[in-house]
């Protein structure tokens, strides 16, 4: 396990974006994003398709580089030149994507460790160890009860919920301080959705932070400490939990869509 980032040093925000912008040619995907996530917050990120939610996540986790702006991780400025997914993992950020987290044709144990394999000096993977830890994760963290899934199972044979479980289990194993969930409940059965929401709650209770992208307003309204609304690359609202009811929130978003602006919380 990575021990380079001091967990004990205190900080205010796990991640803070300052005036982030990202343009693809003439298209402005993100404009002037100012966003701070607290140490132990669940922040719901909502907005219509194309609002920029996934793009924002990718800049925070080193997948893409913004055209301008600053990023602070645990209150320390990030050097864009050296920031990457690997670096984000090392800093204990983990993303659980809806579809793109796992290699379908690869076995479970590879999926858990890809990109941060346990290797010897020459780069050869310690397969036995990775398999053991993978089985461990399946048993302890995910309550695997011998239903035919083990470390060698190929992802393509798992259901949507099982796959999310693996991705989440991976995040847990690497002891992430910030877990980002990108539309985790899409295409899941109802019982599986419950599990995911329970998991999000447990992130909070274990003292970590979470950014939670969700289309289903009921879910995110129930769970989030804060709701950040993105529209056309801009943050248009930052609503604290309890400030709006679900109906108010829904109306707010519809107004936003129609008129391009909406009345904030009363």
């Amino acid at each position: 396990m990575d021990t380079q980032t001091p967990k004990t040093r205190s900080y205010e925000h796990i991640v803070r974006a300052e005036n982030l912008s990202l343009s693809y040619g003439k298209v402005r995907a993100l404009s002037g994003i100012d966003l701070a996530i607290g140490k132990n917050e669940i922040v719901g990120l909502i907005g219509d398709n194309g609002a920029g939610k996934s793009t924002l996540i990718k800049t925070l986790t080193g997948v893409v580089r913004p055209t301008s702006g600053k990023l602070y991780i645990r209150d320390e400025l990030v050097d864009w030149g050296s920031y990457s997914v690997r670096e984000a993992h090392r800093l204990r950020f983990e993303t659980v994507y809806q579809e793109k987290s796992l290699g379908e044709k690869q076995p479970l144990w590879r999926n858990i460790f890809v990109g941060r394999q346990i290797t010897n000096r020459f780069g050869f993977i310690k397969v036995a160890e990775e398999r053991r830890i993978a089985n461990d994760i399946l048993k302890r963290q995910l309550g695997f009860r011998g239903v035919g899934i083990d470390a060698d199972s190929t992802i393509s044979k798992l259901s949507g919920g099982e796959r999310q479980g693996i991705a989440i289990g991976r995040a847990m194993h690497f002891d992430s301080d910030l877990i980002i969930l990108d539309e985790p409940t899409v295409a899941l059965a109802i019982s599986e959705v419950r599990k995911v929401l329970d998991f999000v709650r447990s992130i909070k209770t274990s003292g970590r932070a979470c950014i939670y992208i969700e289309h289903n307003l009921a879910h995110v309204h129930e769970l989030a400490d804060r709701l950040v609304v993105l529209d056309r690359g801009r943050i248009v609202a930052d609503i604290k939990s309890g400030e709006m009811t679900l109906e108010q929130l829904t109306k707010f978003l519809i107004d936003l869509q129609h008129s391009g602006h909406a009345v904030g919380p009363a």
Partner: protein
Amino acid sequence: MSTHLSSKTPEVRAPGLLPRLARVEGLPIILVFVILVVFFMIAAPQVFLGWPIYLSFLTTVPPMLVLAIGLTLVVAAGEIDLSFPSTLAFAGYLFSVCETQLGSPWLGLVAALAGGALIGLVNGTLVAVVGVPSIIVTIGTQFFWAGAASILSGGQSDALQELDGTAIYNIFAGNLFGVLPMQALWALAIAVFMWFILNRHRFGEHVLFIGDSRTVARVAGVNVVLETIKLFTLMGVLGGFAAVLLTIENLNYFSTQGQGYLLPALAGVFIGGTSVFGGTATIVGTFFGTFIIGMLEAGVVATGIAGFWVQAIEGIVFVAAVVLHLVVESPAKLRALSGIVGLRREQ
């Protein structure tokens, strides 16, 4: 903290024989290989029950095998390389020129590997950095490097008879204990080494993930551009080595060498079970698949079937092998098959 996974209705995974066998790497193609050899032994005992034909295969197939193993990794990454015949010509030329003009075949070996690496580097850069699909890049570079070999060699073939009996000949084309062709041992060593790279090394895992989904690979932190360049360069180096094996064995350099290896090497990969879609690959499969292709024509000739049938038979074997792989790998089709064959226990 823990989250209990609910799963859908537990799947009835009857511990049938067929699914367990399917887990042994390359088993389907190994079976096809064995069946084929047994068939040839029965149909042409005077040829296939003697040593000479097998020793002949062990001399001819290794260059094809080295190429096919490299291709296995390339295909695993979801790419393809059609330029390797020209690597045989170009790298072979470099080897030949070092021997005939500079009198140093060992330098020639280094030059051939370096030449192959150069070809691979160009391919990899065009594919990964510029973003041209690999099939297009490698069709283009195939023409270019074949042309380069032609121009540089003036189109002349080079006789390298003087290498016969020298150290480099004995190491790469000689016979161990007077019997076992060295190139077969080299090819085997490469096969074993590349198996470990593909299945047990970080690089191999990256290749598999890139072939599975470039997006997943990227978000997992794999440097897709760099690994792709490394992949094609590796293929180039293997092509250079195959060129050396071929040229030394023939004691001759032909400026047009390599063209006849394009289809057999590719066929060996796909018959072996590596998926053209990428993400999965089997070196064991390629190993036996290439030997099947390498053996086929000689076997058909030995059994006395008219030579015109050879290509038709190659086609049938190819299609049959590919269909077999699809059936074995899909659980639904597998269940249907084991039901028919009577190996499944009813639940």
